[in-house]
């Protein structure tokens, strides 16, 4: 309720000062749209990061979170792309949803209507199995799948999730066929693999490390360009000879057309925030896989991922 009131206040303020010069950005509170529920992973990460961005924006800058959950993030992304591009509305953008939703269905936003500000988190995808499966790397997995066609079932958090897309990409790269079992949340996938109901879990590496440390799961590989420092012993897919890079990014975006002063101020503040040792300690507690990219690099990354998703969609549409 408070948040909404603040939001209304922000709107009123923005109407009054729309003509003001941007020289002293930010002059008034910034709204950050989070396209997921309060208390969820993205929301918690956003609220952890905000004090640090505020600190480095300086001048008593304030950022208020506005949760606009629903439709896999589409409601929030749409709200962000339709906001006034004045630098006072920014939002968290998450891949692959940000990119896969417009491929799957007609949407009112697209990558062109957004301006990437900075990437903050890259959480690589990973495959994991129970120790009693006696499989420790991807080569053994592929061999097993070829010997036992149709027996490798894998659980994901749903159709079109990064976990699902990752497995599709791997199937293509390795020339094998798995059986996809979608679940409705991470906890369900975890329970299903630990309970032996599915053979393998396709979950982000940050969500698997805890079970791997306890010896309940074996991580076969992570789908990053280089190993995440939270799981330094897990080899990447590329190291094992499979060119699969997939994961979920959580970065900051703004409506396209945001003034350059605001964009550069935000990017600089976020870079310093992510480097802040206090924030890094808080992020470590939440198993956040930090990976800063500035505006340009983030845009290039998003366009590359978009390209590969479009190719994948053409060959193997994941929604029929």
């Amino acid at each position, binding site marked *: 309720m408070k948040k909404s009131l603040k939001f209304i206040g922000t709107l009123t303020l923005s109407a009054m000062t729309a003509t003001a010069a941007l020289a002293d950005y930010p002059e008034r509170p910034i709204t950050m749209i989070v396209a997921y529920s*309060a*208390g969820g992973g993205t929301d918690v990460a956003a609220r952890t990061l905000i004090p640090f961005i505020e600190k480095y924006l300086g001048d008593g800058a304030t950022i208020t979170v506005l949760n606009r959950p*629903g*439709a896999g993030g589409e409601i929030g992304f749409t709200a962000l792309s339709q906001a006034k591009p004045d630098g006072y509305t920014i939002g968290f953008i998450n891949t692959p949803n940000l990119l896969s939703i417009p491929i799957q269905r007609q949407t*009112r936003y697209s990558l062109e209507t957004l301006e990437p500000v900075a990437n903050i988190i890259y959480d690589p995808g990973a495959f994991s199995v129970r120790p009693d499966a006696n499989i420790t790397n991807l080569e053994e997995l592929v061999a097993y799948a070829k010997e036992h066609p149709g027996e490798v079932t894998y659980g994901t958090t*749903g159709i079109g999730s990064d976990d699902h897309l990752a497995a599709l990409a791997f199937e293509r790269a390795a020339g094998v066929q798995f059986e996809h079992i979608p*679940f409705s*949340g991470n*906890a369900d996938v975890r329970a299903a693999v630990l309970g032996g*109901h599915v053979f393998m879990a396709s979950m982000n590496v940050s969500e698997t490390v805890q079970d791997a440390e306890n010896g309940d799961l074996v991580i076969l590989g992570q789908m990053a360009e280089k190993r995440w420092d939270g799981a330094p012993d897990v080899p990447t897919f590329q190291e094992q000879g499979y060119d699969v890079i997939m994961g979920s990014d959580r970065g900051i975006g703004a409506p396209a057309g945001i003034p350059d002063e605001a964009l550069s101020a935000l990017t600089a503040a976020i870079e310093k925030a992510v480097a802040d040792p206090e924030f890094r300690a808080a992020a470590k507690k939440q198993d956040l896989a930090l990976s800063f990219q500035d505006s340009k690099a983030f845009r290039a990354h998003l366009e590359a991922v978009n390209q590969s998703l479009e190719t994948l969609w053409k060959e193997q549409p994941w929604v029929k």
Partner: protein
Amino acid sequence: MEVFDSILAALPAVLSPSVIAAMVFGTIVGIAVGALPGLSATMGIAVLIPLTFAMSPLVALGMIAGIYNGAMYGGSIPAILLRIPGTPAGIATVFDGHEMARQGRARLALNISLVSSSIGSAVSAVALLLLAPPLATIALKFGPADYFWLALFGLTTISVLLSKNPAKGFLSACFGLVLGMVGIDSLTGTERFTFGQLDLLSGIDIIVLLTGLYAIPPAIDLLLGRNVVKTGSLSVTGEKEAFAWSSLVPVWIRSSAIGLFVGLIPALGGNIAALLAWNGQRRFSKNPKNYGNGEPDGLAAPECANNADTAATLIPALTLGVPGNAVAAVILGALLVHGLRPGPELFRDNAETVFGFMLTMLFTSGLMFVIGRFGARAFVNVLRVPPRLLGPMILALTTVGIYAVHNSIFEVWMMLGFGLIGYGMEKLDIPTAPAVLAVILGPMAEESFRRALLLSRGDATYFLTSPISWVLIVLILVTLLSPLWTRILSAGKAKNAAKTAGQGRADAA
């Protein structure tokens, strides 16, 4: 034991000032809401959930525990004083409670009701604390096939037990099943019944539905000036009289057991627990003729049983995600609002919160006694509040509250729309609870059915492989056959019916 370690670990959080304040507030609100005819625990919780949004989960849950327990006792105040049950669970309280009041023993009747309610709640909370954790461990072993049978069991019990008029209960359940289908199909990604509406893609939020169905209809009634209480006879009569409390101990034991048992069975609620306990107590008594004529035992039994039902209902809800009745469904909704997904994982990932919540169920049963003891007269005065004041308050709270959950005005309209539907259903005597349970159980049954078939690659015998599945199948069969069984029993009883007068009362509910 591990359970006691978890309980001890959660204790400091429960005893923090904010949680205690929330429990006191919740209990006061609960007793008041229960005392007001037409307002139920379900409604009270549904209205307050969105407002708890900004609180920490345990504070919110402590308040909810207070409302839940408090409302079950509150319902007995007008039942005793005015012969109007404040909540459906207060029906059986009228039988002997109001008689006692007429005989000028209202003070004693309120005291018996309060003590019995507190004891019932406490017993139930202890059962919850002891039974839920081991059940959660078993629930971890549930595979998709088991979940399918579980959801089907829940659906079966609704259809068989919930309504006097099976056609209406069935209609309501089908309404819920259809609502449950709205949104993106999680197994194929296909959009269903979304009409191209962005706001419908993630489905209909259970809180929106519950608030609409349970908070709006009473608000409309209040605005229309219904539920007006004739306050003329509203007084607590009676002197302090000596009463042999120890004589009630066997009543409490028997009624608590009945309440616990009823709470564990999906689709049965506090009203059934109360009726069963009253009937059971009468049958057991040496002088059944006194029942319905102001017998203290006949008041203690239903009041104890309807409170013993409260925490027990939460056992399947917290461990398996299967709500037994509408209140449990609202509490599941409350957990979801706070990002807590009911199920076995809850006990592992959020042990402190879930054990804390179970402890608040226990503590609020004690608080209820203290607050009820000192505030009895104040709660009697709640009945004098003009209904036209309450209606707008409820409407304002629900509107603001639902908006706050997802910052979505679309959901506010949807909630108000469900409110009108709920009002219509109430006027047509169609029960709303089957709809609410079906919204939760329908998608659960469908998803786990399809997931199981995916896992077994279309092999239907997969549904019959696990022992858990077999237990559930047997339960489903027993439930399906139970109407037949009761018919046979009642056919036998019909011969003796002439002897037992007053039986009609129990059936009427």
